[in-house]
């Protein structure tokens, strides 16, 4: 995980764990590293790591077992996919259209480029 300063670190931590769940690195019902592991590994304040993980706990992606640790919830992957799909338009399409306008690329041309991307 590489942090940028554009957005708060705790959000980036949460996204990093989401990525790991989506990619299967952390599978459903498996234990994930502790707050200390995350903070030591990424050299961040434990309070920041906790804040990031708490977002996922609140969303029901991760659950805590008292005295044992933290686990990926059952159904976390589909939940995350749903969330990411919702964000897809805001995060990618909006920027894409904006940049296309700036460069004077027409809508048809963008669609053609998209198709090319799928072929590759």
């Amino acid at each position: 995980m590489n942090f940028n300063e554009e957005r708060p670190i705790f959000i980036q931590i949460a996204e990093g764990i989401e990525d790991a769940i989506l990619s299967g690195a952390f599978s459903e019902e498996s234990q994930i590293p502790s707050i200390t592991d995350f903070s030591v590994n990424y050299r961040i304040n434990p309070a920041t790591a906790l804040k990031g993980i708490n977002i996922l706990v609140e969303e029901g992606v991760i659950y805590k077992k008292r005295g044992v640790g933290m686990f990926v919830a059952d159904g976390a992957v589909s939940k995350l996919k749903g969330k990411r799909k919702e964000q897809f338009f805001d995060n990618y399409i909006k920027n894409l259209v904006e940049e296309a306008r700036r460069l004077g690329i027409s809508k048809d041309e963008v669609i053609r480029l998209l198709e090319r991307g799928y072929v590759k």
Partner: protein
Amino acid sequence: MSIEVKNISKSFGSTCALGGVSINLEENRIYGLLGRNGAGKTTLLNIITNRIFADEGEVLVDGLSSMENDEALSKIYMMGEKNYYPDNMKIKEIFRWTKEFYPSFDMDYAKKLADLFELNLNKNVKSLSTGYNSIFKVIIALSVNTAYVLLDEPVLGLDANHRDLFYKLLIEKYSSHPATYVISTHLIEEVSNIIEDVIIIKKGKIIKNETREELMSVGYTVSGMASLVDEFIKGKEVIGTDSIGGLKSAYIMGQIIRTDIPKGLEITKMDLQKLFVQLTNA
């Protein structure tokens, strides 16, 4: 439980080093005490630890004045940039005496860290390089287990690997034995993710004292054509500007209101380092 610095002032001759400084260092938090060279960081830490005396004001450690008070002082360990240990003393003797003065010092842990840093315990202080001079003090600071640990330029002279090792150990230690850490440094980028609270000191005055998140949420950069930028920044708190040709960047303190950003202007967040540089420029 906290260190309360109350309205501390200190002058050296005619130069005012600290002017009415008040801060609270709360239990089990990691503070970044940031300031340019000569801003008064070390003076402040020296007053907290009874090494020098304030002209005015007082420092309370868990309610006790730290001035000439063994009980208050025993709760604090300060690792200074300057060496206070006898030149001819061997590191292992220093460890042994530290244990006498601070009974909570963990000798086994200190030896383990010395191994990790490849510090030879049979060397005396005088024969250590600048880096190892910092290292042996850092090891004590991480092993001493006091409620308050003040680190003044802890990574001075350390190479990248040792710096990284130090930050890793610091977080490990903080996770297993929480304590209040104050890291005084001008190397902001490195500690930026570790610190929870930011205290920025400029010419002897505290100009910012808030959580890192709070501070980071209010600083942003706006850039674009100079005329547009000038128009946009009217009435805003501008802490600095840069321009190249017709392009201009302005550094602004305040919440970004996404809706009123005119076309052609780009808004980016400022990182702590940039924020610091802009805030502390002459």
